[in-house]
């Protein structure tokens, strides 16, 4: 590779957000590391998620809000979190059958659960087609704001 190319690479990387870059040839190997890739930025990510949530919240929509699971790389695996302090109900009535079960396919707009707050029954609507991987809270459990309710896999 010639000096011109190298210069370009350096400029590109310098003006990027990457704090580490390495490139290997033959069996091509590239590594790009952002600041966030290093320790002490957990809070940063947190704040980011918070901001995102906050941005959604004011609309008082009862659409499910989601955030990617930190512990995994899988971009399709997301958590549906509670938009309010409430009591979580899986079914419309004590004797009725639950809205959703684990493993079930759920379409956008379908009801996932009921969040009861101040005597008001709020139906939590699903934002996108997905499969319910795991239901993270018990029926009739008290939940807090931002508490993960469902672990779902986005359908593409």
């Amino acid at each position, binding site marked *: 590779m010639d000096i011109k190319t190298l210069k370009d690479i350096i400029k590109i990387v310098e003006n990027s957000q990457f704090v580490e870059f390495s490139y290997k040839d033959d069996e091509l190997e590239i590594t790009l590391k952002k600041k966030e890739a290093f320790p002490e930025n957990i809070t940063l990510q947190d704040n980011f998620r918070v901001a995102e949530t906050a941005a959604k919240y004011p609309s008082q929509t009862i659409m499910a809000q989601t955030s990617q699971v930190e512990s995994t790389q899988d971009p399709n695996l997301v958590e549906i979190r509670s938009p309010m*302090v409430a009591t979580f109900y899986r079914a419309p009535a004590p004797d009725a059958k639950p809205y959703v079960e684990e493993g079930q396919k759920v379409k956008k707009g379908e009801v996932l659960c009921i969040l009861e707050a101040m005597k008001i029954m709020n139906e939590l609507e699903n934002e996108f087609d997905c499969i319910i991987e795991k239901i993270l809270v018990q029926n009739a459990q008290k939940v*807090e704001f*931002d508490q993960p309710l469902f672990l779902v896999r986005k359908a593409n």
Partner: protein
Amino acid sequence: MFKKIFIANRGEIALRIIRACKELGIKTCIGYSVEDKDSIPVMLADESICIGPAQSMHSYLNLFSLAQAIHNSGADAVHPGYGFLSENPTFVKICNDLDVVFIGPDEQTIARLADKSKVKQILKNNNIPTIPGSDGAVKNIDELKSVAKSIGYPILLKASWGGGGRGMRVVRNENELINEFNAAQSEAKSSFGREDIYVEKFIEHPRHIEAQVIGDKFGNIVHVGERDCTLQRRHQKVLEESPSPYLDDIKRAEFLETAVKAASILQYWNAGTLEFLFDEDKNFYFIEINTRIQVEHPVSEMVYDVDLIKEQIMVSCGYELSFKQEELKPKCCAIECRINAEDSERFIPSPGKINFLFMPSSSHTRIDSHIYCGYNVSQYYDSMVAKLIVKGKTREEARIRMLNNLSEFKIEGIKTNIPFFQKILNSKEFINNTYDTNFIDRVFLNHPK
């Protein structure tokens, strides 16, 4: 006694309430915003419930969310701290509807005392000195003009529903009057939802001195001395001390007696503060009553060796006051500095992560603070990071100790107003006690008085 208290606040006052509850053997549950997840109060409370996102409007001021959280917590009482919903009658009503005790005066009392001009009227009619001015909000320009004439310039325009100095304007002659009035109205409208404006005689070189009172449901009410809060920056308190160096014992006795009388007239109970202005002839005039615990309450606790938060909880629970007036004697002089995360030159907030921290400690030092090394001072909330309270046998000893303590207070990662306090405490005006409420704005910020 209560079994569990829900804390509807954050920061140092939430921590202060947790400490009081621990001494009383009461469990605590704190409602917190996502931003405060890693805060000390959340760590130290027995339970915690996330009530919303960082923005106060959607968490600490979110009545709906708080109501459900209080319900879910199973608490039998709520402590609102100061600020946020501490003086909000609707919040008190919600607590009542939830069959939970609001720690503070009852809904009616808070509502009654929220109308500052009405309160003044009542006291005026009962011969408590108040600042000459309009009887309640002025209806129109004509009334405004006539009132201004009768009491004479300079005058002060204040929002009936305002507070914290916002919506206040000085008018020095009739030419400015109408413009300032319109401006004040629109500011009041936007800030407090009501455009009512009332007029007051503007006092030159005033001292701001307040009386701490606390009463129970049985009509017992006492004062816990006075606090001199004359050192203010743009009507925001900066440093408080007790006893006030501006008063001799006769004047002090007269003042505190008047304050307790005023509180009785207003049928006040629970912890409260009556704020007065003193003119250069040491005449004093009632301004307003605050129906909550205040930021500067530790100053009185140090001087009188009482615990106002514990007392507040107990009287709210229906107990009689644990002390009588004659048992309360000032034991020392105390000064409080409000350490803020802000640039000490231009006073702009300086949020960020604290990466080094060392705080002073001694038998005569008390620090109410929720910060720690690694803590992120959020831009979403008040910039106060610590209250440093120091006592001494004399005011001068307290002043020297405060300077020594400030020199030990090491904090990196954020800027603080510590250098500013060092300037103030070393100024001849503070040492000689020759300052007024405009001192800081005039001398340190070079603002027109």
